[in-house]
């Protein structure tokens, strides 16, 4: 179980949150202009990183706001918490 430091509410247990997968996937600006391969890449392919991974969480049973985590997917250690719109911080394992 993770102890997640919500940037708005402070540390709360994982059951209050919901993980929504990889962060920083930008929707193509002009979907009609891109190929099926590029669209499929946007829609389905994920980096699924073994190591430092940037992901989106939402504080469902709390402030209901979204934010990002940097987490080591091998040790499950949370390395950084940052708000939506902020650039991913550089972190070390």
């Amino acid at each position, binding site marked *: *179980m993770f102890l997640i430091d919500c940037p708005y509410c402070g540390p709360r247990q*994982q059951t209050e949150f919901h*993980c929504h*997968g990889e962060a920083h996937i930008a929707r193509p600006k002009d979907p009609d202009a891109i190929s099926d391969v590029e669209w499929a890449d946007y829609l*389905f392919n994920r980096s699924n990183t*073994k190591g430092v991974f940037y*992901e989106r969480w939402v504080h469902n049973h709390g402030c209901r706001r979204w934010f990002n985590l940097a987490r080591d*997917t*091998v040790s499950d250690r949370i390395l950084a918490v940052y708000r939506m719109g902020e650039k991913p911080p550089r972190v070390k394992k």
Partner: protein
Amino acid sequence: MAKYSVFSLVRNALSYHENWQRAWRSPDPKPEYDILVIGGGGHGLATAHYLAKEHGINNVAVIEKGWLGGGNTARNTTIVRSNYLWDESAAIYEHSLKLWEGLSQDLNFNVMFSQRGVMNLAHNLHDWRELNRRVHAIRLNGVDSEILSAAQVKAEAPILNVSPDSRYPIIGASMQRRGGTARHDAVAWGYARAADQRGVDIIQNCEVTGFVINNGRVEGVETTRGPIKAKRVGVAVAGHSSVLADMAGFRMPVESNPLQALVSDPIKPVLDCVVMSSAVHVYISQSDRGEFVIGAGSDLHVSYSQRGSFEIIEGIMGALCELVPMVSRMKMMRQWGGVVDVTPDRSPIVGKTPVEGLFINCGWGTGGFKGTPGSGHAFAATLAAGEPNDMAGPFSLDRFRTGFLIDEAGAAAVAH
């Protein structure tokens, strides 16, 4: 290699069981193979076995970074069934179930396949309607499936709480009587022994660190035990598929999630079928040793830690205490996790990759164990021909571009 039989048992008993041959060799890697299979779990070993047996290709190696069947093959809840909704899935899982039915004889190794029946519970009207639809669809595909009333459920599994006042009332269930369980370790060992017997090299403690790719064509792999050349390479590494794909320079529609299971202390036999409930994320069977083998849902976050969240265990145990009240007074002995590779449509990927000569078999998600023989069979045919066979065809990586998804989320998202 000696054949296992009652006579070999007697012969070895005379020498106090001190002269049994090793079940498989432990060779050093040769510099080159016709086909290299990465991943010594059930799927990889089955692939090697069928390559040698069905296609006569013996110059094959299986390389494994840890030990045989030390990953998901040893971490699942051993449930085997083939009651899938879509035609493509029904074809490959039913093929797999048919192979299961003759597997002990084929491998000359007792995989303890027990067709004790697999029951899926319905707890509300929606469940019930969906379950009826599924049962009929499954039967149209020639796969056995039947509908049980609540009274029949109680007769099959008296430990279940079927009271209408319970939190999860049981309206009825579907039952696949040909489904059941098998001994997971024996599956890995049996395939390893049978493949080794036909000349396949099984190389453990050999981790792939990179691919040798020239002009878009794979020529071999770099490993911790030196480079190995190969004409074709098959990847069957489940949770680490994205890591290997990354080494080869392409992306995968796969996420690796922790999936957990646990076992209780052993008790006298009280449950002789597998009971699954998708609605409350629980599945339970009783092993030959008397332990309840209990499976949980998977975590939703990416993790390679082989360790799930405690909240998942709390959730399923709460539900289980309602469904099977006697469990509330039992102790859980062990709990563990594996890393499952989940695709967006919850169906596997078997076939080509963007790299020529490099093939992948992954995405079996939370239900790979039951697919082991079928998966190996289809992947071996694919590797031997260099083209996916009819069974593997629909499960191509390319389906995420074409949009021909095989949406088994209802059948596989939770319940295995």
